[in-house]
């Protein structure tokens, strides 16, 4: 019992230790990677696995294969790359990552490149080029510079070194000639021991390099018995005795010949070269010596007049292409960064090296040459999960790395980039412009470029939708109720529906995934002649800010159920109210401008309040001041009503209050008196419908008659003065000027704001009509009388006025029913109107019913409407009708990044919506 308890305790402790160790040591990641393409670079495996899967556990690859053919462990998280290519992390078979050591010895085996490798370094800028494994060279400045190392550029510090001590680095290059003298420092310095000048070291020139090397190797293996302690030679001897292979660098034909001879005499080794290998291709092939070939492209700036010779590069590659038996690793040479390895590799294509050999040369073969082929360089079970995720083919210069994994853990990922490039066979920009094999760049949520080839910012995501795919702008539901959640009530004119919109939910996203990205949101009811605001929203987005295109996108009137004449009166009343409101603002703007100009000019802006206090001499002479008994009658008032009013005249300003019966709300009657007539308004809270206005005439002393108008209703007014004593209420004179004479802005009336916007022609009026008489009235009122932007909705009888509509450029939001029977014949209004030059748009008049809008479009096409006209009705024309064309409805630069990717013609019934992008983000 006890022992069992102890055992379990021990096990627990061991487990704790293990897990703690794992945390620190970096056990490696466990996950499943799915990708559009997987390139395993393994012999006997397909070159590319379409829809491939890589299973990784604890940083080691468990399985690679086609999706569906590889069992996926249920416990592992799945990461999907729908557009990307997964391949082994690149292996750079040479680098000067460690720099050159500062030792003086021409021949030294003591220096280890691994000592200079920063295991804690941040190499993400190199990983961004796809390079995960690197050979670190101890330097090319000494004949024998030391030993190299093979390292990883990511992952935990303890896992970064793959080979601590690699080959002995020997250099047959000009930089090794004339090494510094080897000075022996004497301690303690004394007069007995002479300080000798430093010994000269070999080689001074090319002549001495091979003999110097042979001599050094010989003497390190057989040191003199009484020789002083010499660490450099001692370690060299140890390494040679341990059969450390030699890695020999030579760039010139003459050195290469020596090098190949030397390596052949040693029966092995690796040759490193940055040029002129064509001269030794034959012997190289004969000896099957592996070669690390460094490509030097002058990518950063053009090479000088006597710089690298590009012909040599092509000759070399051609010669190497002819000797497939030479294991060839490609690397970058002088002037190129490690992160450009893929570019260097791609350049080898120019000279005819096969794609396979190139890619192997930066992956599997390179790893094998470096002696780490069993760890990295290919995607096979048992190998470390060092792999990269590319946006396209490695040899396509436009491709870039989306992720780099080292031992199954993300070692590089682009910093939060909002860039997205969509490629497709057809980019449908507008009915007039389509691009074959085009691209769209979306950055920070906006379309930046559209064309045959667009810029690819660093770290951009690339979606290649394929040759058959069609990309259109996001579609617009021109009148819908998405997000109202069945709230079928009306909305007063001061309400912005966008306030009810939050983060997108499943319902919204369903609409988004159908391709409808923008909805012109209207309440179910409540338009009437008063008008209700319409908001424009996106069907997806994480916040209200992302979702709202425009809080007030249009002012919607619904006069379908009204008699045209009555409707006209009411509409006109509203428009007038709006006009007046606008005028007060315009006056304010003008005053403000004047004031500012005055102030700028340095003139005194302080104006004394205009003295209007021309109080009448006596109350008796004043025809108004006093208490009046008023009667209102007519209009909708069933029987005349009487009340008492206190009236006060100050100058020409009249102010009055109702005294009897008591009025339960704040009110104020103000007006101006011109000696005979009073015109003014009753300032009461009307829930945003403006103020009732009145005018009255003194027809005989102490008696007046007039009318009160409010929302198209008119009532008669009659009054009689019953007392001439001045009333006691305080006359409040609203201030119109600030302290420094600055004009004060008028009061904002939320209910009139949309009307003001309409009057300013910033938003259109959307008027739902049905009968042609209503259409006629609306056209006359809005377009002819007020010159306002107008869009008709429903408008079943629009065909009667089609000519006028086309002429006045008034569009029609079609009723939800596409095909009607008219005079016993089917009638497609959309087709008819669009053919006659009237812009049309579709509406759902529903919430998530918007997601079947495309089928309505398909049906319209089936009934004869042209596909381009339907597409236009869903995109650019809808945007135009709602004055949203600066934001949506097009793929031109500057618009929102709303795209719909179809796998075929968008209005074919068999076409699927592949993907939807809203504000540059894919809808999931």
């Amino acid at each position, binding site marked *: 019992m006890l022992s069992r308890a102890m055992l379990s305790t021990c096990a627990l402790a061991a487990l704790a230790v293990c897990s703690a160790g794992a945390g620190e*040591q970096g056990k490696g990641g466990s996950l499943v990677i799915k990708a559009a393409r997987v390139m395993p670079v393994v012999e006997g495996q397909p070159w590319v696995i379409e829809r491939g899967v890589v299973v990784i556990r604890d940083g080691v690859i468990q399985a690679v294969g086609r999706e569906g053919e590889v069992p996926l462990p249920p416990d592992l998280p799945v990461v999907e790359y729908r557009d990307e290519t997964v391949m082994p992390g690149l292996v750079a078979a040479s680098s000067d990552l460690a720099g050159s050591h500062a030792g003086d010895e021409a021949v030294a085996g*003591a220096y280890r490149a691994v000592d200079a490798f920063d295991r804690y370094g941040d190499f993400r*800028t190199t990983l961004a080029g796809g390079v995960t494994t690197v050979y670190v060279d101890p330097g090319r400045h000494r004949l024998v510079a030391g030993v190299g190392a093979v390292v990883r550029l990511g992952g935990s510090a303890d896992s970064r070194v793959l080979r601590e001590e690699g080959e002995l680095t020997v250099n047959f290059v000009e930089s090794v000639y004339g090494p510094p003298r080897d000075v022996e420092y004497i*301690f303690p310095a004394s007069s007995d021991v002479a300080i000798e000048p430093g010994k000269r070291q070999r080689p001074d020139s090319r002549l001495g390099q091979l003999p110097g090397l042979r001599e050094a190797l010989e003497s390190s293996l057989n040191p003199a018995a009484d020789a002083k*302690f010499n*660490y450099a030679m001692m370690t060299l001897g140890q390494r040679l005795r341990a059969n450390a292979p030699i890695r020999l660098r030579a760039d010139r034909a003459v050195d290469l010949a020596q090098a190949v001879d030397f390596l052949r005499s040693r029966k092995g080794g690796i040759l490193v070269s940055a040029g002129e290998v064509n001269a030794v291709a034959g012997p190289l092939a004969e000896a099957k010596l592996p070669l690390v070939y460094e490509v030097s492209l002058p990518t950063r700036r053009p090479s000088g007049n006597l710089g690298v010779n590009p012909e040599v590069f092509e000759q070399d590659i051609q010669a190497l292409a002819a000797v497939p038996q030479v294991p060839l690793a490609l690397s970058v040479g002088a002037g190129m960064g490690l992160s450009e390895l893929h570019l260097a590799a791609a350049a080898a294509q120019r000279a005819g090296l096969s794609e396979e050999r190139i890619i192997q040369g930066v992956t599997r073969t390179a790893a094998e040459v470096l002696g780490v082929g069993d760890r990295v360089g290919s995607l096979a079970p048992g190998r470390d999960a060092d792999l990269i995720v590319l946006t396209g083919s490695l040899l396509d210069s436009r491709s870039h790395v989306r992720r780099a994994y080292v031992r199954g853990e993300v070692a590089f990922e682009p910093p939060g980039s909002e860039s997205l490039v969509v490629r497709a066979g057809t980019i449908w920009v507008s009915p007039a412009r389509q691009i074959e094999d085009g691209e769209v760049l979306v950055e920070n949520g906006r379309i930046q470029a559209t064309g045959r080839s667009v810029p690819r910012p660093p770290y951009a995501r690339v979606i290649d939708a394929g040759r058959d795919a069609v990309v259109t702008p996001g579609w617009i539901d021109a009148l819908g109720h998405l997000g109202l959640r069945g709230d079928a009530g009306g909305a007063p004119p001061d309400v912005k529906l966008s306030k009810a919109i939050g983060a997108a939910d499943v319902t919204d996203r369903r609409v988004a995934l159908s391709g409808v990205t923008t909805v012109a949101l209207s309440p179910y009811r409540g338009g009437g002649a008063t008008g209700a605001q319409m908001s424009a929203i996106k069907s997806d987005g994480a916040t209200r800010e992302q979702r709202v295109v425009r809080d007030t996108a249009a002012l919607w009137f619904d006069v379908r159920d009204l008699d045209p004449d009555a409707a006209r009166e009411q509409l006109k009343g509203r428009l007038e109210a709006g006009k007046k409101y606008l005028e007060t603002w315009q006056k304010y703007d003008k005053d403000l401008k004047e004031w500012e100009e005055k102030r700028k000019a340095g003139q005194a802006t302080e104006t004394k309040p205009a003295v209007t206090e021309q109080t009448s001499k006596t109350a008796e002479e004043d025809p108004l001041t006093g208490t009046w008994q008023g009667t209102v009658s007519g209009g909708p008032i069933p029987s005349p009503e009487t009340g008492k009013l206190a009236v006060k005249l100050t100058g020409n300003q009249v102010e009055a209050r109702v005294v009897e019966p008591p009025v339960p709300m704040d009110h104020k009657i103000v007006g101006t008196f011109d000696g005979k007539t009073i015109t003014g308004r009753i300032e009461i809270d009307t829930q945003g419908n403006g103020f009732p206005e009145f005018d009255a005439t003194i027809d005989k002393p102490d008696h007046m008659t007039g009318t009160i108008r409010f929302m198209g209703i008119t009532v008669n007014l009659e009054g009689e003065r019953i007392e001439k004593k001045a009333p006691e209420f305080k006359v409040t004179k609203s201030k119109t000027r600030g302290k420094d004479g600055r004009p004060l802005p008028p009061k904002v009336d939320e209910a009139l704001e949309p009307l003001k916007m309409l009057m300013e022609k910033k938003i259109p009026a959307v008027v739902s009509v049905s009968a042609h008489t209503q259409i006629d009235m609306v056209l006359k009122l809005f377009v002819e009388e007020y010159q306002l932007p107008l869009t008709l909705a429903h408008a079943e009888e629009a065909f009667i006025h089609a000519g006028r509509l086309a002429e006045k450029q008034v569009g029609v939001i079609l009723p939800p029913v596409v095909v009607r029977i008219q005079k016993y014949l089917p009638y497609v209004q959309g087709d008819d109107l669009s053919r006659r030059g009237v812009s049309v748009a579709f509406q759902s008049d529903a919430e998530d019913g918007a997601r079947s809008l495309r089928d309505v479009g398909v049906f319209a096409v089936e009934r004869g409407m042209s596909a381009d006209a339907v597409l236009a009705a869903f995109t650019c024309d809808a945007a135009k009708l709602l004055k949203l064309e600066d934001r949506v409805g097009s793929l031109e630069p500057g618009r929102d990044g709303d795209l719909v990717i179809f796998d075929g013609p968008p209005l074919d019934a068999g076409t699927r919506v592949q993907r939807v992008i809203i504000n540059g983000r894919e809808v999931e």
Partner: protein
Amino acid sequence: MTKLEISRGAGRGAAGLLMLLVACAAARAGEPPAKVALTGGRIIPVVGEEIAKGTLLIEHGKITAIGEKVELPHDAMEVDVSGKVLMPGLINAHDWQGLDVPNENADVAPYLDVYDAIDPSRLFFENSLRDGVTAIHIIQANNCVIGGVTRVVRPIGLDVDEMTIKPRVGIKMSTTPKGGFDRMLQMAMLRETFLELGDYLERLAEQRYEEEQKKAKKDVDVGPAEARKLGKELVRPEDYDDMHANLVELTGGRLDAWIYAGAAMDVGPAIKIAKDNGLLDRCVLVLGPDSFKAVAELKAAGRPVVLDSTLDFRERDALTGELAETFVPKVIHDAGLTFALLPNPDASLAERYQTYQAARCVREGIPRAKALEAITLNPAKMLGLGDAMGSLEAGKTANITVYSGDPLDFNSWVELVYIDGILAYDRAKDVRIRRLFQPPGADEKPDEKKEGAKDEKAPAADETKPGDKPKEESKPEVDAPAPPKPEEKTPPGEDEKKDKPKEQDRTSRGDRDGGNRKKDATRSGGGSDA
């Protein structure tokens, strides 16, 4: 201020006077009072619970008792430190400021000893004392491959021998490249040094065997390998040459290794070089600003570390340029490692104080006790002095710093510092501080000084009071009544340390400086008059 009261026994009158005389005589002779009791102060012993109001008894330079109630010997001099806070004297674990030049030119120089380069007259020592530091590990700076032998000293004393607490602590090494070096060369040289040492010892053994054979008039009848084996026991300490003697001490366990790992990548090699040469259990790692990134390796090694004085490490992201900040001691503390905090001599005012460094640790969430250990007990342990200092415990050396308030409060002063039970520093008599707080021109003439002092209300009355202690100072500046804070009552000073030679040296130096300043002040004063 500290109110000195000679213990009031039964026979107060004559006996007290007699004792006073004895005490004075002892003081004049340069002998510290044998027994001192610090009473009434708040005691932070670092090891064990804090005592809100307690007594600490010093006998013959050692702490002998500590507690709320301590029975005092009849002959103990009682010093009332009510309202003050007692802490172990701070320990500076790693500093080259006492040296004339921080680094040696030679890359491998184990034959050096900081003994030869310590300059006792450095202002650094005086400042250290003022900041409450009672032990400093003088070690050469980080720009080396292998440096010389290090030493722990007190901040007082006329010469290095007098200052020395522990003469041979360790040898400085670095895995971060010396200037002009790279890591390949640095590491090759480190490896070479130890390999060469092995080679040297073998040859020395052979040589010794041959010598002994020769002395015994015998032929060398064995091969070199056998001779080396036989000669091993014959090697005597004096046979080692200067180049190797200290290295033999190092590998032989008599010296510790203090290895600088100035970057994260240098930590692994530092641990490896220690491990390969049997130094791992005797090494202290001195870290650079970003070495904390190797915390896993540090944790595995489990060795104490000395942190860089810049406690927050800032780094920009290579891709985004975003600035990230790490508070290094927290990482080290969370890994469970023992660490020491250093003052930063190059920083703005605050970081020069170890107490400030500790306070920052507390602010960042390290327990207060751990932060205090990092400036007292931890460095003591690293230096092999854990049994002798670093905390207030009976039996330990009486190195005590008395603060005016909480030591981690930046408003607190160091009031008194006792080293080996001797009052080594008294803020009331700190000449420099006095000058600093004196109104300009006040020290032109003694008369004027007095007048200036009279302006300050409280002390004037107090100092005119004759007090209950004898006046036997000879230094005029000690007499001068110029307390740093007006509200503090400062009777003219502690007597027991007056005539300590070290103290004399210090104050006389202060006097010298004061004299210089006086001249300056006169000059400037003249200018303003004109």
